[in-house]
């Protein structure tokens, strides 16, 4: 560790050497009335210059070092006597730390003949305002969403839980990005074992940079090769606050509005914030539809293929005749047709995500007119397939969390392939395999399928049926069942 030398020239030289070719670096020297030399170092665009000028430069330049009861000799003394009218001021002796602070947007003041520097926290940079989260909008509830700034985000949570047990531990991760990460939890409610696990993993992370919270997600997950996410992300501070009260742990990463929540279960992805804001009777009905749709989202193509090519006796006569008539001129087997349409549908979806907003309608025109209508009229794709694919697509969007739909979109293909070869035998085989996988999976010690398997009578009150809040028998002290 290099220390700051007492010679101002030496310090300036080493700073210029370390921060060479940084065009946004500003180094300004002053000579005060009493001829002491002063050096101001900061990064242009990241510092609130106005407050520095008003509170530091003006008094120093115009009146020099203050004379009080006793003459103040050093800048360190100045701080000790709280002469600097800035709230966040400290001194530092290490050169590395000094550079680090400068890069973070703080102002450094060096004085000739002193082996320490004053660091003034006067960061200020352009940032986005708090807006309604676009991906997770609800009909009722707060319209605030997280932003990219870490401190804004922690404040959004603090404002919701005004209690000293809300703890926020700070971490800096990423060799080059030095990204600030805050581990938030409710002390006494969150499971200490999970906390220790997460802390240990956060300390172990060795990356060059953390650009988005997904970088952390992959480092933290226990079963990396599973299709199912073991950590949830959200843009909504109210969801984070509610999760913290349930004993979950939140990870807020600087530079992204997506806050990680862990541990989660399979059902977390199927629950929406609106479930807790609307009347519970309605919510019970909506959840039933949502669960049904979630089942459709991964199984309908497989069921259709199994029914129409293996078990046509299970389909009512008139429906089967309808399907048979529609399929007469189809050139491909049902499976191939279905696969074709699924690939096209997923392709359209992918294109829609990447397309600029102005070009969005083009995709829907191509999708609806060319693929939907023309393909059917040309007899290449049969109508029931289009219906099945659209229904499957719509069903996937009833799942509130985008990241929770992704495994369903993959399982769809696997189930389709098995069912097309073995019929319902294959379908059942696939479902059993899927269930085995899900039951074995854990998210930070919480079984993924809980509270269903293993069964937990208390927590199941918030699964299929959302009981009214007063019936839920108090708080879930522990996430672990």
């Amino acid at each position, binding site marked *: 560790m290099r220390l700051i030398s007492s010679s101002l020239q030496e310090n300036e030289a080493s700073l210029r050497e370390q921060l060479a070719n940084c065009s946004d670096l500003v180094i300004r020297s002053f000579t005060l009335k009493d001829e002491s030399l002063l050096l101001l170092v900061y990064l242009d665009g990241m510092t609130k210059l106005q407050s520095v000028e008003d509170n530091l430069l003006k008094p120093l330049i115009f009146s020099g070092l203050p004379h009080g009861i006793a003459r103040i000799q050093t800048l360190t003394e100045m701080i000790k006597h709280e002469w600097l009218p800035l709230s966040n001021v400290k001194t530092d002796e290490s050169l590395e730390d000094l550079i680090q602070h400068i890069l973070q947007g703080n102002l450094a003041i060096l004085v000739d003949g002193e082996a320490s520097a004053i660091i003034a926290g006067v960061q200020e940079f352009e940032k986005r305002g708090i807006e309604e989260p676009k991906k997770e909008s609800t009909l009722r509830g707060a319209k605030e969403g997280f932003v990219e700034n870490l401190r804004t985000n922690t404040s959004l949570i603090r404002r919701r839980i005004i209690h000293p047990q809300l703890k926020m531990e700070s971490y800096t991760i990423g060799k080059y990005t030095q990204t600030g990460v805050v581990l938030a939890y409710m002390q006494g409610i969150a499971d200490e074992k999970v906390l220790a696990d997460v802390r240990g993993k956060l300390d172990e992370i060795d990356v060059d940079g953390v650009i988005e919270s997904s970088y952390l997600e992959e480092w933290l997950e226990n*079963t990396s*090769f599973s299709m199912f996410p073991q950590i949830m992300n959200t843009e909504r501070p109210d969801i984070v606050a509610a999760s913290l009260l349930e004993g979950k742990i939140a990870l807020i990463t600087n530079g992204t509005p997506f806050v990680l929540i862990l541990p989660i279960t399979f059902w977390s992805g199927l629950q929406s914030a609106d479930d807790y804001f609307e009347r519970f009777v309605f919510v019970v009905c909506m959840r039933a539809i949502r669960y049904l749709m979630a089942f459709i989202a991964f199984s309908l193509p497989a069921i259709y293929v199994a029914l*129409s*090519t*293996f078990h*046509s*006796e299970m389909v009512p*006569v*008139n429906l*089967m*005749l*309808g*399907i*048979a*008539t*529609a*399929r*007469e*001129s*189809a050139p491909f*087997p*049902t499976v191939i047709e279905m696969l074709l349409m699924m690939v096209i549908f997923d392709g359209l979806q992918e294109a829609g995500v990447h397309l600029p907003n102005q070009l969005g309608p083009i995709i829907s025109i191509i999708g609806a007119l060319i693929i939907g209508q023309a393909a*059917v*009229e040309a007899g290449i794709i*049969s*109508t029931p397939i289009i219906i099945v694919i659209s229904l499957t697509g719509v069903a996937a969007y009833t799942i509130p969390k985008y990241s929770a739909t992704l495994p369903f979109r993959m399982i769809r293909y696997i189930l389709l392939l*098995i069912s*097309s*070869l*073995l*019929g319902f035998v294959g379908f059942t085989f696939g479902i059993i*395999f899927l269930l085995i996988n899900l039951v074995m999976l854990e998210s930070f010690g919480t079984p993924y399928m809980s509270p269903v398997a293993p069964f937990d009578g208390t927590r199941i009150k918030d699964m299929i049926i959302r009981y009214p809040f007063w019936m839920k028998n108090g708080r879930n002290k522990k996430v672990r069942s």
Partner: protein
Amino acid sequence: MLRFMALAFFSLIMILFFSGCTDFDEPNQLAFVLGTAIDRADNGEMEISHQVVITSQAPSKGGSFGGSNHFIILSAKGKDIYEAQQKIQRETSRRLMMNHRILIAISEEYFNQNDVRKIFDKLGRDPANNLRDIIVLIKGASAKQFLKMKHPMEPLSSIGEDKKMQTNAIRNFSSRTLIIETLSEGTRSMLPVIQIKPSKKGSNLMSTNTIVSKYAVLDKQLKVKGIVDDVEGAKVGWMSGNETVQGITIPWKDGIGYLSFRLNHLKRRIHAVRVEESKQIIMSVKAQAYLLENTTQLNLSEVDNMIVIQNYMNKQLEKEMQQTVDKVQNWGADVFGIGEYLHRKYPYWWKSKKEDWDQHFKEMDVKVQVNIELKSIGMIGKL
């Protein structure tokens, strides 16, 4: 975990390879058989005719199945059902799909001259049959003729017949019930009969002029013992525990006016006391009646008249039903399931009687008791 998953995936692929990927049938490789006719052919052979829907003539874009010309009849002769069916299959481009069959029509001629129980062996043994199809007896023409007929409303004659039965709440005539009844000792079967009248212009359009519905009463060997018309048949159905009567019309005492009722909550109970000595069986039937039409002079807003009507209806119906029971009893075919009741109530007595139950049934003294409750007289008392 990774190794386990790799192994699992590998074995999955292997299963798929070894199972052979070709055992599925696309809908356009199937011929959907909706109706089957069984007729008698020469040399003791039988003729099987399949009514097959033509799905390839897509009527409209993406449209559903419909139209009147969308079926063909495929037929072949053979020693048994399977042989004839194989002959048809060899000549057909698509695999015959029997699971969607709605109806099996058997001609009266075949019924009379062959042992029909042999047909049901194939129906019961072959798992490819769904057993939901109804079995009808065709009178007056060959069963094949019936399949060829056009229904004015429905695309196929078999669909029309099936829907007619469903609409009129005529149930329990599926091949499944028939097979169960054949196997049980104490009950005989009844079959719906379609009588086809020869039409003058040679048109084969089904209508009320060309088609008459009746019921055939069968004995243990599935031989036709007698035929009752649809009104009587519905009453037999009621007395055998199926809700088939939907309405009745009875003449009033003066012979001029008539009373019509809608019936529901049809119930029947068999009751026997000391059957060893008296041989007396009481068949009590119950229902709730709603008056729908009244062409008599009675003013029904008077309660006394209601009671009079109710009593009269009970008496009248009792008379009619007793006649029906006597008629069926004469044929010696216990379609009511009285034998099943006695089997359960007097198992030891039954043991000695079950061998020639048809004969013993003739000797039983079956009394009908009708107990109908008049629930409503409608909205007006008297016009």
